[in-house]
């Protein structure tokens, strides 16, 4: 069966420090991969999605970037964190074939101080 792993679960980082969040999927090939952010008490905002290795689409201009170095690995990064980058980050996948459910990782709660 397919599983999605996301880490770390929580992270406290100072302003100006770099960021790297990792997401991996097991049990499937060529998944669509997504990064979402959720501010406190708000909905989910799509940040990036990827349909294949090295293929990244950005949804909103921001201080973050994403990379997909391997088929089932999706990384969210920042060179210098801002206070406004705080939030709950969720990774998700669904099948490239379409007509399937999407599944989410357990999320990373990032606090920038």
């Amino acid at each position: 069966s397919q599983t999605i792993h996301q880490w770390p679960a929580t992270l406290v980082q100072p302003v100006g420090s770099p960021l790297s969040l990792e997401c991996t999927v097991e049990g499937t090939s060529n998944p669509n991969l997504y990064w979402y952010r959720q501010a406190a008490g708000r909905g989910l905002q799509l940040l990036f999605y990827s349909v294949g290795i090295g293929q990244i689409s950005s949804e909103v201009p921001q201080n973050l970037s994403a990379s997909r170095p391997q088929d089932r690995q999706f990384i969210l990064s920042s060179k210098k964190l801002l206070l406004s980058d705080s939030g709950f980050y969720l990774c998700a996948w669904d099948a490239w074939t379409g007509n399937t459910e999407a599944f989410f990782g357990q999320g990373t709660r990032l606090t920038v101080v």
Partner: protein
Amino acid sequence: GIQVEQSPPDLILQEGANSTLRCNFSDSVNNLQWFHQNPWGQLINLFYIPSGTKQNGRLSATTVATERYSLLYISSSQTTDSGVYFCAVVRYSSASKIIFGSGTRLSIRP
């Protein structure tokens, strides 16, 4: 792009009550899912329901794709049903992005 609206934004009920949550979408969709976000933030898959009706225990969902809405029914609510319920859609012509509604925050009082 496609717009997804959920109502009501907040709902407070007593344990044992029934509730109906609504999701309207502005254009035809290929996929539709309902999620429950628990107090720890985890998104739990409830239903994958691009059309038709499904039931799982006390929960059921109906999507009327031609009229661009979906309903989530919760019967005999329990305190563990509390949390935020999200509707999410995919439209292939929009590059298959998963677009979420703003959610319904459900609070069940004992």
